[in-house]
């Protein structure tokens, strides 16, 4: 087991390095740096001064070396500019260059400075992660129990009408991506002109104009059912279908096993068989699926936060990518990559624990 975890971790670190290098390379392409120079320097710079700015701010030279600098395994750049001031990656303004540390990459905790938010990247990403954490937590709390319930109910009696209805629902839900369900939910529940809100308002059931709020910006300070229900429902709806279908398949397979028949023939009641005998074995496959669902959840978070204007991780990523904020985008990518890899690792380890038939040397 320990061997397996170590080997997995080694592959994970390698993957993380390759992926962050790819992101670093793609965000530091020539035109991106020129755009950065013009936005940070001045718009009317000549091509020569753009090249000089890029060189002067440590963006010149080999991409591999710059990646190592950014990572914090190579000494950061130091330049003396035309006014005789020594500046460098590790030298903060008004600090003595001689006292500055030699290495300062993300490994040393220096994630750079966001040009859009005018703040250190680590702080921006941290705040965004906290906001997204609440969203993800709410989604998980809604999505996983709903999906498992639907899957178990559909799978325990395969082919019945309950099964058909629930299966069709799960298929429909997995055909509704976030940008579709978000649009439909807002039109149906959060619009003062269409959907249910004007009807309810005309009946006098509604004090405000909308059933729900179409933006979740206010949920940043204060989460309420009114402002948080729609974003959570939007993300959960797309995920429910997939997990429910996996659970149904797994449950249906378990219900055909010999030991279930034996239990039934012993005279154990159906409810007892499902709860005591089938459920645990039927949960092995969905566990993996739920863990592997996290990367897709990240996708959904980006879309949903953009629709509902919820200033979390996804919203920050979109802002960073749209405004050529290189260091913030890199920071977001590191978080995203680590997040995906960690869920994959947990899913593998959990699978081994849940399923004693698998032994890894």
């Amino acid at each position: 087991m320990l061997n397996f975890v170590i080997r997995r971790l080694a592959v994970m670190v390698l993957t993380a390095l390759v992926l962050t290098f790819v992101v670093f390379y793609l965000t530091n392409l020539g035109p991106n740096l020129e755009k950065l120079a013009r936005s940070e320097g001045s718009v009317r710079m000549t091509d020569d001064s753009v090249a000089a700015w890029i060189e002067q701010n440590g963006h010149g030279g080999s991409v591999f070396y710059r990646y190592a600098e950014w990572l914090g395994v190579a000494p950061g750049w130091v330049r003396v500019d035309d006014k005789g001031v020594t500046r460098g990656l590790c030298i903060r303004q008004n600090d003595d260059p001689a006292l500055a540390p030699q290495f300062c990459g993300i490994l040393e905790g220096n994630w750079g400075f966001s040009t859009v938010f005018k703040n250190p990247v680590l702080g921006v990403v941290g705040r965004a992660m906290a906001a997204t954490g609440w969203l993800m937590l709410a989604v998980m709390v809604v999505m996983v129990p709903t999906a498992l319930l639907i899957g178990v109910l559909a799978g325990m009696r395969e082919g019945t009408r309950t099964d058909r209805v629930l299966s069709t629902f799960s298929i429909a839900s997995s055909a509704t991506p976030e940008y579709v369900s978000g649009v439909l939910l807002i039109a149906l529940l959060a619009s003062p002109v269409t959907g249910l809100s004007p009807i309810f308002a005309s009946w006098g059931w509604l004090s405000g104009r909308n059933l729900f709020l179409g933006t979740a910006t206010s949920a940043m300070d204060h989460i309420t059912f009114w402002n948080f229900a729609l974003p959570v429902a939007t993300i959960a709806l797309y995920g429910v279908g997939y997990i429910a279908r996996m659970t149904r398949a797994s449950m249906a397979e378990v219900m055909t096993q010999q030991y279930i028949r034996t239990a039934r023939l012993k005279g154990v009641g159906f409810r007892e068989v499902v709860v005591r005998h089938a459920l645990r074995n039927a949960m092995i496959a969905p566990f993996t699926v739920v863990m592997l669902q996290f990367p897709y959840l990240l996708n959904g978070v980006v879309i949903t936060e953009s629709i509902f204007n919820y200033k979390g991780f996804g919203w920050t990523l979109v802002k960073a990518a749209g405004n050529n904020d290189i260091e913030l985008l890199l920071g977001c990518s590191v978080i995203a990559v680590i997040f995906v890899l960690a869920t994959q690792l947990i899913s593998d380890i959990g699978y081994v624990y849940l399923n004693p038939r698998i032994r890894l040397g």
Partner: protein
Amino acid sequence: MTDILSWPMIFALMAKQFWPVWVALVLTFALSIRFKRRLGLYGKLFDSPVGMAGFAIVMFWVFTAVFADVIATMPPLDQIGSVKNPLPGTPVVDLKPGQFPWFLLGGDHLARDIFSRMVVGARQVLIIAPAATTFAFIVGITLGLPAGYLGGKLDTVLSFLANLVLAFPVILLFYLLVTPEIVKTGYVIHLWFLGGHLENGVGVGGFTWIASIPNLMAAVLFVFPIIFFGILLNSRFHTNRPKRNLYVGVTLVIGIWAYSGLAFNADPVGVWGMSPNLLNVFVAVVFVNAPTVFRIVRGIVMDIKSRDYVSAAQTRGERSWYIMLWEILPNARGPLIVDYCLRIGYTTILLGTLGFFGLGVSPESPDWGSTINAGSKLLSMIPHPAVVPALALMSLVLGLNLLADGLREESMKD
């Protein structure tokens, strides 16, 4: 003619506009049900109500794409009148002769007809999504077969690469790969002697190709169909030289002709070609999908390769590629067909995501993702410009999922 149409009238008029689709659907279903016993897996689809429903929805959109020019009431890119966001059923002000008199499903913020944009958008979606999925399948199969069958170092390397792509959050990948900057970055290869001329020792005109990342990826990914069909035919007919030479020769000629046009935009005849933006989107979608197909194919091959008929072929002394392509692949077709249907749906969703983030083919393109994006700005006050394409996209993906479900059920029966 000045009143806003009621919803029943709108639906009646839309149903009338769709008449070629209804005719085509009725013909397809009548013929398929009549001959369903002779049509193999496709015929069996008509035994499953779920599969039939899915097939009907999918074919509805396919025929809509085919007959889009007849169905659309107005040109999809033209501004009709000057009223912004007209509601569904609004009559067109100062009607020109021969013009359709209503905005059936309303208009968008540039007063373009939403119904027509949805119909023409179906054509865009239904060309790009299946084509990208097919490419992803060819790449995934060509790499997944040897990885699963031969194993060893090849498998380790390919699996690592596939996992690498899969560990990338899709949206991040799109934001990095589908940008205007990336199209312009790379070594410029300029061959003036191909169609250009020399002026004072400097080449002018002729063939230019930028070795940008999307172009390089296209150059790599688009070789796979040629490799796949070349090996497929070669391994089958290598004992019959004249036949082999003919088939492989034809594949190579057509393949390289299409390849020069699609990957290098250098088709001398001008039949094959893609705009740089479309190429960028296309390559990104293929790149995201191929590793998943690779993993599925690899898994199926590892399961099938211990079967008796594979051992029989090995004992006969057949070559590896023959066994992979003509013994294993046909027997893996069931799950692959099902996944193909699901994956077209997923690709549609991905394309919509790209359009939703404004990374689509072009900002004014009528494809559904871009229109949802454009409509979502004023969503809570004027929902109809976003809701119409959203429902269209949802119904197409739902149809594909139901179709896949029906196929899975029917293919498991035997």
